[in-house]
């Protein structure tokens, strides 16, 4: 079942601009993670935010989590051409080893 739904499905911005993508989910979670996938490759873990955290930073990435709205956002600042990829959110339930992935946002950075 698809728990996470990303919005928008696709996003194109100019290099140097900020990119924001959103994720909504349906049930209570232990943590929420964001992954990146370059075209035709596997996914790479970017950042994890726990259910008791509201915001987290890692380099040019900023993730927020609003458990009352069951939503998260990923902000990439000062985008670069190398950020062109698909981005997926994934939720982890309590006591469950599995992740549930969303359908992804395809980000294109225009040089």
């Amino acid at each position, binding site marked *: 079942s698809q728990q996470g739904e990303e919005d928008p499905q696709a996003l194109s911005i100019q290099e140097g601009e900020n990119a924001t993508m959103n994720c909504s989910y349906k049930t209570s979670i*232990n943590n929420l*993670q964001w992954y990146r996938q370059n075209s035709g490759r*596997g996914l790479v873990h970017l950042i994890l935010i*726990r259910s008791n955290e509201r915001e987290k930073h890692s380099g040019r990435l900023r993730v927020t989590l609003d458990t009352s709205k069951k939503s998260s956002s990923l902000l990439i600042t000062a985008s670069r051409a190398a950020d062109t990829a698909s981005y997926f959110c994934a939720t982890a339930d309590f006591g469950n*080893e*599995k*992740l549930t992935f969303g*359908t992804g946002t395809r980000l294109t950075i225009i040089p």
Partner: protein
Amino acid sequence: DVKVTQSSRYLVKRTGEKVFLECVQDMDHENMFWYRQDPGLGLRLIYFSYDVKMKEKGDIPEGYSVSREKKERFSLILESASTNQTSMYLCASSTRTGSNIQYFGAGTRLSVL
């Protein structure tokens, strides 16, 4: 660095063939997963394993089976490949302690003709 290796990047098979997709991880992870990825559908879990010889069905197990005889290796088997199994297959692993962060292989793009 964790390394998850999938045996083939591209594979072309005929309808009805038995297909084996192999995945090996080198970090002594307890959990291993097989997903398929199709446009617009995201990643869907086929099977996962939390220990040697243990397996659990995911969301779409029909038409697939798995084998985990050794901790580092998790095989996905298509008993009789069909055209609707043409897809990108992704293997991942994670450790049981911690945060469920998964480490992925590069993927196998399977075409069934």
